[in-house]
């Protein structure tokens, strides 16, 4: 159950991106007001802005953290056609005064682009310290810091011409693959072909080669995200277009997805009722997808045991109410329902996949005040897992 809290950020224009760091204890925001802010959470769970500085002379589109192994390193990209690498330097003033000053030092400016740099992403850690940027003129550039102790030097390792106006990119986090990048385009013209291209780094040829172009995606793509791959045998790619499309790439069947014979590999469309989805984010295990749309709502999506994606929660932007759409079985996110496993799971699956049941369920429980779970369960002769007891919470969330 989510508790919403509004945090006042001193940004003077729209905030475009928010990024958690590796450990989830820090957060960075970037805004059109040219600045980036870094926030830290204290032991009480409150967020404090610990740094705010002017990073660019244009809207800052994205901000991203490097793996902490490389230091507290941030990268930002902007409308001013630059990407910049920042490192946090903590210095102490006057000895014994114990005044700690956190300075964000600009380590490098990547000025190769001639147009707005629309996205910047650090590579997965096993590829070293690499950075990919994409720009509105269709160039994807891969930079590498050859010396990890010196972040001022970044060599441009490769440059890919995508021939489409790029808006977002995502590294494939799976270590089973060669380095792979998916690039999305926000070109509004639907006839201009597929809006997502996937590039693979061929080690032998030492270059990036387009391995796939998703022709089924014709609407403008605003965000793209590979799901974290924790031991999965396949890759999952979420694409934020008008709706969210989830695609699955099986290692065994690397050919086109749309034409795949296996139904598992057909793209899944998550309906956002006409709202434009702008940004998406996976949870750590890659099982829940948060999609933020311009109706001011975040929807959380999760696949059930049949690989049917369901909206499990809607988080309202005003923070005033959070409603549970479906009865969510208590089973933790990662342990999904499996058809190969005992029947109990099927029961839970039935509950989550049957809207009729769940609406009846929640309305009844609301009517009765307290949740009459056990009774309910018997009536329906459905074994009620203890899980369902949290149904009634979540209708009203106090806003701090």
């Amino acid at each position, binding site marked *: 159950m989510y508790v919403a809290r509004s945090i006042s950020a001193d940004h003077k224009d729209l905030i*475009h991106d928010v990024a958690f760091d590796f450990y989830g204890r820090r957060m960075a925001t970037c805004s059109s007001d040219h600045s980036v802010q870094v926030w830290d959470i204290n032991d009480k769970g409150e967020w404090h802005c610990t740094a705010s500085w002017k990073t660019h002379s244009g809207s800052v589109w994205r901000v991203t953290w490097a793996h902490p192994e490389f230091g507290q390193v941030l990268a930002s990209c902007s409308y001013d056609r630059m990407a910049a690498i920042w490192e946090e330097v903590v210095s102490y003033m006057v000895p014994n005064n114990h005044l700690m000053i956190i300075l964000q030092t600009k380590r490098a400016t990547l000025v190769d682009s001639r147009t707005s740099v629309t996205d910047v992403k650090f590579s997965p850690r096993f590829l070293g310290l690499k950075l990919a940027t994409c720009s509105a003129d269709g160039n994807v550039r891969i930079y590498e810091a050859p010396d990890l102790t010196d972040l001022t030097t970044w060599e441009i390792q490769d440059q890919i011409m995508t021939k489409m106006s790029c808006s977002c990119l995502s590294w494939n986090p799976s270590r089973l693959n060669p380095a792979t990048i998916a690039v999305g385009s926000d070109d509004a013209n639907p006839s201009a072909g597929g809006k997502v291209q996937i590039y693979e780094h061929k080690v032998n040829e030492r270059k990036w080669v387009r391995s796939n172009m998703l022709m089924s995606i014709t609407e403008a793509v605003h965000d793209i995200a590979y799901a974290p791959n924790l031991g999965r045998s396949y890759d999952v790619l979420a694409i934020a277009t008008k709706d969210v499309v989830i695609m699955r790439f099986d290692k065994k069947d690397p050919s086109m997805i749309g034409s795949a014979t296996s139904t598992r590999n057909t793209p899944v469309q998550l309906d956002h009722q006409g709202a434009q989805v702008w940004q998406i984010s996976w949870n750590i295990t890659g*099982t829940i997808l948060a999609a933020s749309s311009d109706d001011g709502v975040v929807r959380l999506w999760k696949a059930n045991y049949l690989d049917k994606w369901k909206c499990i929660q809607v988080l309202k932007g005003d923070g005033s109410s959070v409603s549970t759409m479906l009865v969510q079985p208590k089973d933790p996110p990662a342990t999904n329902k499996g058809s190969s496993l*005992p029947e109990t799971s099927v029961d839970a699956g039935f509950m989550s996949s049957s809207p009729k049941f769940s609406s009846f369920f929640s309305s009844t429980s609301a009517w009765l005040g307290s949740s009459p779970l056990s009774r309910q369960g018997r009536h329906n002769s459905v074994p009620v897992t203890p899980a369902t007891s949290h149904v009634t919470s979540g209708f009203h969330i106090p806003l701090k």
Partner: protein
Amino acid sequence: MTTSVHLDSGINAIATNREKTQVAAAGRLVFKIFHIEEGSFREYLDLRVGRINLNYSCNDVVWNSVRDDILATGATNGAVVTWNLGISKGNKMDKVFTDNTRTVNKVCFHPSEWNILLSGSSGGVIRYFDLRNNVCASTFSGTKNSSGSIRDIQFSPHQMFIFASATDDGYVQFWDYRRNDRVLLQELVHQNIVFSLDWHPEERNWLATSGRDKTIKIWHQESHELKLHLDYTLYHIQSVRKVKWRPERKYHIASCSQVDDNAVSVWDIRRPYVPFAVFEEHKEAPTGITWYDQNIFLTSGKDGVIYQHVFKDAKKPAETSNPVGVSMSLNGDIFHIAVQSGRNSGVRGLSTSDGPSAKRPMPMFFRRHDRTAESFVTYESRLIFHELRENRFSEWFCETAKQYQLVGKPFGELCEENAKVAEELGRHQVAQTWHLLRLFFVDVSQVVPKVYSKQSSAGSTDVTSPRTQAEPDKDPDSNSIHRDTAMNQHSLQDVGHAPDSATGVTDEESDSDIDRTKWRNKNLQMDGIEDPFTLDDDDNYDENFDLLDLNLANSDNWNLPAEAFPHRHEIENIGRQSSPDPTHDRSRPSSPPTKPVDDDQENSHNHQLLASQAIDQAITKHRSEFNLSIKYRPLIKDMLSYYADKGDVQMSVSAYVVLGDKIKGEIPSETIEHWFISYIELLSRFKLWPIANHVIKCSDHPNIQMLNQQSTTIYANCNNCDKPLEKKSWACNRCGKLTNTCSVCHLPVKGLYSWCQGCSHGGHMGHLKEWFSRSTQCPTGCGHECELR
């Protein structure tokens, strides 16, 4: 439609005539006049004819606002030239003023007096030419404070005699053209060069300036004050060469950059960071902007192109930038950015609430205007933190990681322990899986009581275990795989058979097989106890209450005693028939337990937790024919992959480690490596490094085992004499002192010794923490600014 015309050379300035039917484009090597016709430009005149000299090299061009036939240009050599289009043929050059010795940056006609021409040059002098008598009527030179070259001049559209000039050293000056002896007003407006200024066409006394400091500033002058007030600051990508107000839009202004940015931007001055519209047609830096009407304007560029831009073709950065954002942390917390809803009805300053102007009280003059202004949507984001309060991934993940037991116990017990861990965290499916795993490899009949007992009730297992023993004997092939399980179970079996009726008592003692012998002795002693069942019943009673909490689904038919009781009798019978002697039992060739199969089936059907029909059937059908472990190895492989695919790599890895040799070779080695690395990375994200290390140790994959073998050496120096320490030394070879004394309390440190690698001093963690909360230097006084903070 955006249209364009290409010229041979870069254009420095453009000017339209009063009717806006013609446009003059002037550059160093070009000077032409075009007719603006519907959707196109038509070349009308080339003024670069005759003997070309430097007078033709134009820096600026201006059309007389009263007489359509007069133009003026400022040349790079300092000449100010007027052109008369009325000259019938040949060279239209009319007069040349050579008063300036340095480049003329700007020429400017009076909006209503045709004869008044001003020029500003790099020499820092403004010259006023009267075209009636063709003389330089007066000069306006900067005061001592301001001596830089003049970049821009413009007559006020509202005050007859006033013009403003912009200088290289950051000043804007107001002059009365009738009086050249003094500056009306002088204000420092930019840190550096002021490239351009523009009076607002409608708003009295609004002035926009732009400079090299990458800003556009909007000022106003109080009617009776000789001072400019800053209202808005717009932040440009690059230094701003030119600004021009958009007609009929009070808050809109167009700008272009001096260098390095080829876009022409139109800003809403209330949104200081994001241009309202952008026109990116130019290939090189734009130089001149002239509005045709509110939706069409002309620009010229160094690329030699004049564009007629139409607003409909504009790119609007605000529309393509994402207004909302979301990020999910590893805990499942979500940060959400949403657009702050609500309209700001033109109250200036809200959108720029922290701008320099907002703090100042609003002048009366402005309030009047703003009240009638069009409403303006503020651009602000809300930052919302959705904290996940329940069912947090991190919680159960960390708990599970900490509590799972991967090695050090017999397989069955590990499964039970882990099942219990999962059960307590409410992860029923995982718990179930652990039970099943045990079931596959141990014996179904053993699990039955196990499932119900929250305390490890090995006693009942013992009773049922003969069948475990019986099975491998039937299938010699699987014997090897199964042997260690069987061996592990032996300890339990031993006891199980010894006491006929003392099962209840043995329950309590059977938690580990370490003190097996002791236990056996004890059992022998307890052989005579008559009322063990009371104890047993009590236990069951309690446990069932626990079960009620844990799993409501099973609450209806938990009649365990009834179920367990006949079961035990059955087994006891078998036990008796064969032999009560443990040693015998171990080597005993088993008799096929045909009869108990039925009982077993019955039992497992009664049993709610064994809900899977498939498994029931499999057990009943095949238990006498196949070894379960062989039969279910592919199934287990699938199960592990299933968990990994579902994002629970923890389960995959844990189960894999626990299963050990039982599924060795079944799963590809790279998959195993992938799982392990994923799990280890996950653990390290939650900062569970000791557990990660444990997992590494448990792994059988060479690549994984390597992970904690890297950079394990710690180099340390003696904290007294700085000699590098030899391995395993706690005293320094040279000075003979202890190396592990605490710098604060001077006692040797036992356990965790933390030290600064810079100066080799350290000590108790607590002491050091306390010390460094007050000081930044080393407690020994060595003067080192220790890293340990």
